[in-house]
């Protein structure tokens, strides 16, 4: 039987899981936001990685077909997206039940009736909307978390209600989403995947009768090809799907890391420091890495690595969150926007406003001051992003500077503006010929390192 290895990175804001095979190739990734309940977050990430692994194996099996026939690629992407929707749907159903309970225990009389009706209306709007997005626009590929997807739409809807209902509607939202988020919803892969195939059939037959010119569905080449022959594609893939649904993904060993690693129910030898894991993961992807910068939710780490991927020294931020993801979270709150919008907004800047306060709390005051004197939001944000990166740069300097090659990892690496300043400042301080590595999997480096340690410490 083939052996697989799991790495779990229990971070302060997100939990990541990576599954690798015996050749150190990533075959499964899972990610979820970490709230109060670390155990559930870990489990969700782990299960997600296992589901994802099945899809990866499917893609590997069909590699030749996918290369020669774009419709295969599209079809599999679609199943994955629908599959994610079905998981989402299960949790959404739970949420609706939870809303009922919360309303019952919080409100009475007429107010209660009004709120029940509001909630019903809202879900009647947002549930189909989300379904549509998952199925027709591949929302699943966008890597958003349950809470984010629901919040965004829910907030939009309550904004339309009268002011007096804002507070109570937010109250029951908070009361309902947390328990659902902190509860593990188990899925049966097989059941879900066959259900997904049904939904897909429905999608494609709907497409048959749709004119790309006047449709709200995004048509692309693959989609158009599928329009004529989805039944055939379905027939030829079905057998493979049955295979991956039935196959046993045997996790031979696992290693946990990250901020909350001590909470994982793993034996001591299977818990590794996040510094080691990030470095090892980064080194696996970029074997010439000498310096690693990892900006996570709670801390920033500058790590020096030798030619074996082993850490020779590291520095972490101490007593101050200014250089890390949490700071971005505060800033987003301060501007009343979501974390995902920060980077793009900052990238629109025409100039960078200098932000003097490196302290999170003072920066908030400074922002208000700058807005008062008429500075543009985008320009302020650009300045803030730059100041974060400058903190990271001083940490790098303390750890011995940047050595060639430089690899940037961690959740914050998904922020375009941060990336821009990291590249700019590393080049400026350490030279233009330095190789800078940034990978789409950067947020998974810690979990990858963990999985690699799991493989290396595995004994039959």
């Amino acid at each position, binding site marked *: 039987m083939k052996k697989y290895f799991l790495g779990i990175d229990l971070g302060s804001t997100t939990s990541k899981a990576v599954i690798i095979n015996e050749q150190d190739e990533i075959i499964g990734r899972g990610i979820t936001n970490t709230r109060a309940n670390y155990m559930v977050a870990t489990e969700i990430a782990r299960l997600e990685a296992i589901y994802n692994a099945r899809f990866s194996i499917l893609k590997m099996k069909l590699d030749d077909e996918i290369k020669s026939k774009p419709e295969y690629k599209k079809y599999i992407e679609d199943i994955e997206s629908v599959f994610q929707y079905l998981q989402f749907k299960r949790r959404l159903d739970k949420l609706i039940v939870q809303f009922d309970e919360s309303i019952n225990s919080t409100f009475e009389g007429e107010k209660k009736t009004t709120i029940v009706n509001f909630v019903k209306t809202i879900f009647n709007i947002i549930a189909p909307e989300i379904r549509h997005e998952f199925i027709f626009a591949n929302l699943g590929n966008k890597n958003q978390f349950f809470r984010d997807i629901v919040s965004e739409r829910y907030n939009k809807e309550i904004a339309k209600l009268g002011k007096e209902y804002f507070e109570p509607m937010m109250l029951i939202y908070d009361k309902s989403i947390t328990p659902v988020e902190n509860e593990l919803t188990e899925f049966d892969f097989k059941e879900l995947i066959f259900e997904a195939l049904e939904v897909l059939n429905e999608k494609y037959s709907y497409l048959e009768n749709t004119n790309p010119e006047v449709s709200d569905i995004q048509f692309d080449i693959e989609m158009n090809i599928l329009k004529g022959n989805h039944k055939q594609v379905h027939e030829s893939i079905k057998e493979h799907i049955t295979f991956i649904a039935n196959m046993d993904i045997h996790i031979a060993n696992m290693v946990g890391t990250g901020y909350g690693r001590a909470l994982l129910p793993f034996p001591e030898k299977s818990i590794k420091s996040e510094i080691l894991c990030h470095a090892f993961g980064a080194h696996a992807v970029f074997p010439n890495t000498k310096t690693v910068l990892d900006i996570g939710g709670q801390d920033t780490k500058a790590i020096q690595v030798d030619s074996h991927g*082993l*850490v*020779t020294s*590291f520095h972490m931020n101490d007593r101050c969150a200014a250089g890390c993801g949490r700071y971005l979270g505060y800033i987003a709150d301060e501007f009343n926007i979501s974390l995902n919008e920060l980077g793009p907004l900052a990238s629109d800047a025409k100039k960078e406003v200098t932000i003097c306060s490196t302290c999170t709390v003072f920066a908030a005051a400074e922002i208000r001051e700058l807005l008062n004197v008429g500075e543009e939001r985008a320009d302020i944000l650009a300045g803030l992003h730059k100041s974060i990166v400058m903190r990271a740069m001083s940490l790098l300097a*303390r750890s011995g500077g940047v050595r060639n090659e430089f690899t940037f990892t961690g959740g914050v690496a998904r922020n375009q503006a941060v990336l821009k300043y990291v590249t700019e400042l590393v080049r400026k301080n350490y030279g233009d010929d330095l190789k800078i590595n940034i990978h789409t999997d950067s947020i998974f480096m810690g979990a990858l390192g963990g999985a690699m340690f799991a493989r290396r410490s595995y004994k039959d």
Partner: protein
Amino acid sequence: MSKSVSKEKSMIIQKEMIAGLLKELGNAKETGKKVVYTFVPGNISELILAFDMLPVYPEINALQSGMRKKSEGFILDAEKLGHSEDVCTYVKCDVGMMINGNIGPSGEKIPAPDLLLLSYTGCFTFMKWFETLKRLYPNVPVALLHTPYQEGHKITPEMTQYMVKQLKEEVIPKMEKVSGNKYDEEKLKKILANSSKVEETIIKIFDTTKNRPSPIDAYFAGVYYIGPINNGFRGTPEAIDYYNELYKEIMDRVHNGLGPITPEGEMEKERFRLVVEGPPNWTHFREFWKLFYDMGAVIVASSYTKVGGVYDMGFRVNPDKPLESLADYCMNCYTNLNLEQRVELLSKCITDYHADGFLVNSIKSCNSFSAGQLMIMQQLERRLEIPVGFIESDLVDPRYFSYANIKNRLESFFQMLEQRKLILE
């Protein structure tokens, strides 16, 4: 770990020695003995003893207060007087103690100074510290002994002469005046002859960490071992006895293949050997130490145990040249070495004692030790290709000891060492 912790004979001897000195200090006013306040780095206690005076070391009082959980209150009191957050916490702790009646950590009153002997070796704080003491004791004379910094890597004859001149013209006359005794060179020579014996034994003691397992911890236990020489016993027959006994005990451990003794008994398996730079944290000393021995980490050499004297690079006192020896001794003290010399010394320790890693405990409020530590660390990392670690704490300010932070970093550091062993084997 074995349950019972047997008190070694040397520990008992040391306890008695220190208690005796404290008692003598407590009775100083009655017996008419004069008291000299001075510092540990480059402390010329032989000269103080030659005048039959008693030394008091403010840093030692501060660290003792820290270990007995009394420092926080003292520091807060000193801050109320206006001492900033960044001032060396040894200073604030002592100032707090003094304004609270100068009751020493062991509960006995510390007599006021009759002389302030400011030996200035590398740390600028010393100057400011004595300015503060001078304000607290306005009528007490101050003798300044300035030690030239070893900038050019070596001690020139002119430097020695410069110091001898200060001893002759500034320090000795003041000591004669305060003590009422004449300078007696023969007496000083005898005392120095004792010192030289102790130096030899100390070298041998700290060299036993060459063994595997190392029979001692040269940092956490090391600071106890250097207690007597830093606490006024340099050059005394008691010190000779103490160090002989200690050496004997340690050699017994070597012969029996035993590792170091910890507060919880014997350390069973030596997993990592480290060299540590920087003072330890005193307020959480036991917890701090435990983080190491729980992981099987033993410190085979540390720079802090050399603050009272660096013998590793060959320096020895020469009783035939007493004042020159004192001068050279001051110039050789660790805080007076330039950064290159420190790197050299540490690098020799890492190689000689086969360390697996190098760790810096950077002290938030100690400018003297902290300056250059990152540079030292990076040079050692590159030169010896050895894993290095960095943690931060404070001397005696408990507010600056973050257990979780330190633990997290140490765990990562130890895992670094472990992984290295695993992969490179």
